[in-house]
């Protein structure tokens, strides 16, 4: 079973979607990601979809769901690198993804996340230093 790796970078989780998502994969990603957020106590989630060229309403909803789930677990979600065609499709589908932060590329997304965390006030995360390099199994 194919899986999308979830990488941990300090306080953040990094997900790069390199394949075209099908429904099952997207649902697994959603489940894995909330698990990871809970396990690592991550403060931010960065999803890179620059390689995704096709989306449907289901995918749009999954991305929205992930953002909302992370938010109530106190982690901000940033979606980066959306293709113009994907953006237009989502808008035409009536999914403006309100509540999801967006950025042009990973670098800008990271900066945005850092600023968000700073604004919210830096906290001492106890589990920051133990499991240093964690990824989805």
């Amino acid at each position, binding site marked *: 079973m194919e899986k999308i790796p979830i990488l941990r970078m300090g306080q953040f989780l990094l997900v790069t979607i390199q394949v075209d998502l099908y429904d099952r994969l997207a649902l697994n990603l959603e489940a894995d990601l909330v698990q990871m957020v809970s396990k690592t106590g991550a403060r931010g989630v960065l999803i890179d979809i620059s390689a995704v060229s096709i989306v449907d309403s289901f995918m749009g909803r999954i991305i929205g769901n992930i953002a909302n789930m992370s938010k109530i677990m106190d982690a901000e979600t940033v*979606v980066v690198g959306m293709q*113009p065609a994907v*953006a237009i499709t*989502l*808008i035409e589908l009536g999914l*403006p993804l309100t509540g999801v932060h*967006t950025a*042009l*590329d990973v670098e800008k997304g990271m900066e945005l996340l850092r600023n968000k965390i700073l604004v919210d006030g830096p906290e001492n995360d106890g589990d920051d230093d133990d499991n240093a390099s964690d990824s989805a199994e």
Partner: protein
Amino acid sequence: MKIEISKMLQKKKKQIIDLWMKNQLADAGLREDLMSNDELRVQSEELVDALLKRLNEENLADIDSSDFDEIYEILGGISITRARQGFSPRETGVYIFSLKDALLEILQQEFKNDATQLYNATIKVGKLIDNFGIVTFETFIKGREEVILRQTDEITEISTPVIRVWDGILALPIIGTLDSARTQVVMENLLQEIVNTGSSIAILDISGVPAVDSLVAQHLIKTVSATRLMGAECIISGIRPEIAQTVVHLGIDLSNIVTKATLASALKYAFSILQLEVRKKQSNSVKI
């Protein structure tokens, strides 16, 4: 004795052309600047030639006869070229109707002594030429419409430039009404340019949009949302007082969108987001 009109006219061809040319040259509205007299004569001869070749006793009264197809073609050609050259409809009309004068004059000479036949022939020829006139106008208008369509295409092509006003700031002045097709082009251009330049702020200037109705507003909101999805911020500028009035009266909610009155204030806002500052240079003479 009954004279065949068509045969008679065919014999008088030379005379008809001369008379027609004389009529045309005598007309005050002759446009020598657009077409020389020689060209005019060639054009006229071609038409009279074709007409007289096809004309016979049966189809003289039947304007829908397929015999005239070739003539309609020639007329259409003349009409369209004239439309492109910039002749007014009146000048083109006069051109065709002066042929009627020439023909009627010939008929009058022939049937001097027979009023009934003159009357009959006049009616027939009159009808025929009138029909030619109608065909001419139809094609004339068609020719003009082609010109208009081509211009519309050109305008849409040039009307959506994406300008890079600063590092990381794009501006897109929209001029003319926004319809669905244009929004699509505008959106695609803007998003592609955002990717190409890595800009994080886009300014949509609508000071050139004559009116904003709910549909246009909808299109604007769509464009702004799409830019936001890409990870860039979109500012709408150039909101004129009338536009503000209509937007509020229509009950369109633009509160989630950053709007500015002028492009200058939008740029200022963009600078503040990018933490840039524009300052006046301190000149040395002041210090001394």
